[in-house]
């Protein structure tokens, strides 16, 4: 025991450790403050927090869970991108290979279950924030950012649903994207769309309506796959990451983790 303590002290006091973490073991209040202030990741937090912000029964830890699951999705998704090619010849066989050939391969499983869990976590986070009235001033704007993040979470999950290119995938996306056909004024079968005419020619038809823009064709096909892949791996995560930065920053600026105002 004494040896272990000594080893720990030696590591913490070594030049390498000190160059990275600056402070040693945060065993005094001064060091606790410095540990949080000196770290890029920890300084997302204030040095001190309300007691209710630490209580699990109050926060349900759902915002943190959502963020953690987003990180899980990023890491597992990145690994999946090494093996997956978004074309209709390769997409399904690549997933099949991941399933059958990769030893101990649970990355796809974790990615999929993580996605479901994230949707649930984000809903529960919204539920908690509503139940504690934490959207009220001064947090109105941050609630709005949160709603957009909720929508982006659903879109991330929706675009990812197509990528395995199996029966489950294309028919779920078919059902989902068929709704766009009925967009009022912008969908082929939407109300009022038939009234938009140039002479006798309908301007809104199956080849240029809202659904066409969404899936890049008249039916789910190779361009849909590529489109959803790019949205899933690049566009939406970037947008979500940007909004998350705002979300977290505003949590601090609007008075910290919610508690009675």
């Amino acid at each position, binding site marked *: 025991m004494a040896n272990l303590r000594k080893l720990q002290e030696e590591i913490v006091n070594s030049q390498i450790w000190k160059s990275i973490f600056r402070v040693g073991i945060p065993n005094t209040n001064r060091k606790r403050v410095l540990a949080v202030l000196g770290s890029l990741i920890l300084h997302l937090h204030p040095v*001190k927090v309300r007691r209710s912000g630490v209580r699990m029964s109050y926060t349900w830890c759902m915002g943190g869970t959502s963020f953690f699951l987003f990180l899980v999705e990023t890491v597992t998704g990145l690994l999946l991108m090494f093996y997956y090619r978004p074309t209709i010849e390769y997409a399904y066989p690549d997933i099949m290979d991941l399933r059958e050939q990769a030893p101990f391969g649970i990355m796809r499983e974790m990615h999929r279950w993580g996605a479901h869990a994230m949707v649930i976590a984000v809903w529960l986070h919204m539920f908690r924030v509503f139940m504690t*009235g934490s959207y009220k001033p001064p947090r109105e704007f941050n609630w709005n950012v949160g709603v957009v993040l909720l929508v982006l979470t659903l879109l991330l999950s*929706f675009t990812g649903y197509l990528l395995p290119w199996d029966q489950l995938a294309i028919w779920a996306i078919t059902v989902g994207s068929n709704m766009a056909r009925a967009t009022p004024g912008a969908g082929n079968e939407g*109300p009022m769309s038939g009234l938009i005419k140039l002479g006798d020619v309908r301007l809104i038809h199956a080849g240029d309506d809202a659904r066409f823009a969404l899936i890049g064709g008249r039916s789910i096909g190779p361009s849909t796959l590529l489109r959803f892949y790019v949205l899933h791996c690049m566009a939406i995560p970037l947008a979500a990451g940007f909004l998350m930065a705002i979300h977290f920053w505003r949590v601090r600026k609007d008075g910290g983790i919610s508690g009675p105002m």
Partner: protein
Amino acid sequence: MTFIKDFINVLSAASISFVLLSSVFAFIVYFNLFDGKLKSKIGGGFIGFGALLIVAGLFIKPLLYLGITYFLIMFVLAHLGGRLWDHKTGLWMLILGGGFFALSMLDGNFYLIAAKPDNVPIAAMIFLLGFFTWVALRKAYLNDRQMLAGGIPWEKTESDEKLFTWPDLVYTEMLCMIILTIVMIIWSVALRAPLEEAANPTSSPNPAKAPWYFLGLQEMLVYFDPWLAGVVLPTLIIVGLMAIPYIDTNPRGNGYYSFRERKWELGIFLYGFLVLWSFLIITGTFLRGPNWNFFGPYEYWDPNKLVPLVNVDLSEIIWVKMLGMPLPKLWVIREMFGIIFVLGYLGLPPLLAIGPFRRFYQKMGPPRYYVGTFLFLFMMSLPIKMVLRWLFNLKYIVHIQEIFFNV
């Protein structure tokens, strides 16, 4: 056993389960408003309504099922009173629910649907939602009781107390991350992600379902056309959520659980989130089989199940059935009544502003009041359409096929 299964199969029909759920919701809300003490008149009214349903059920069989269950649930709830929010009662309800779910897995048909890999998270979601609703309402109830006695909510008692982020917060976060990682690994090892045969655009599965979190919207398609269920209403849900902090001007209940201080906001939000959204997702996932027909949880998904198409339009009910005339050719005249109905519905806010909602109108001011009531009316259009469908087999209120405008 078969009797219980049949009983639950009948009960889970949307028309019955929705009425049950709405009533239980109203009852629980009512509890929280009155500190768990039943005002004999209203509480008795709920139980009396159950008794009335049983009597009506002697003539119409499905109503008998509804009546018995309604009566029993209300009776139990009324006697539980404030104890509904005890640790013990809550735990027992969870154990009972979980046990019932586990027992149901013994049924082959139930197992087929509940154990489908993509449905597992929804089963988990039902329990999580139930648990967290209970947690939130329990805390609100305890706070409300404290405030009624002249105290302050417990969150306020410790709001001045601050803790160091290191170690209190970072250790909690660390622990959460470790537990989550373990859960995710076990879940991923135990259950393989679903993968069906390769995509085949020429053979569509029956039923073809959207991802589970959109099944509420797909279920709405039963009652509304795609332009409403798939485009307008989802947009309004998002807009409505974003508008909440600007419509709600109530300064109280900021940052702590409370029901009495925010009964309208909580009532409307919980109704939308739990009774409408979650109910629709659960129905769409577990109870909709081939051809989007309804199947009870213990029923075999028979692709050849015949469901008579008996739905009629409002125009047909009025012109043909009531007035005994053929449908007019011109759609403006044909759909006159429906259009008047819809316009009348959307014209309610100004009427309500001088009538029963005058208090809100004065408190909120015109812009907040009109945006809020407009969004509320759109939300309530769903249960209204559902009830009209069940009562009158009403298909469309306005049916203008000429420009794809069906409501």
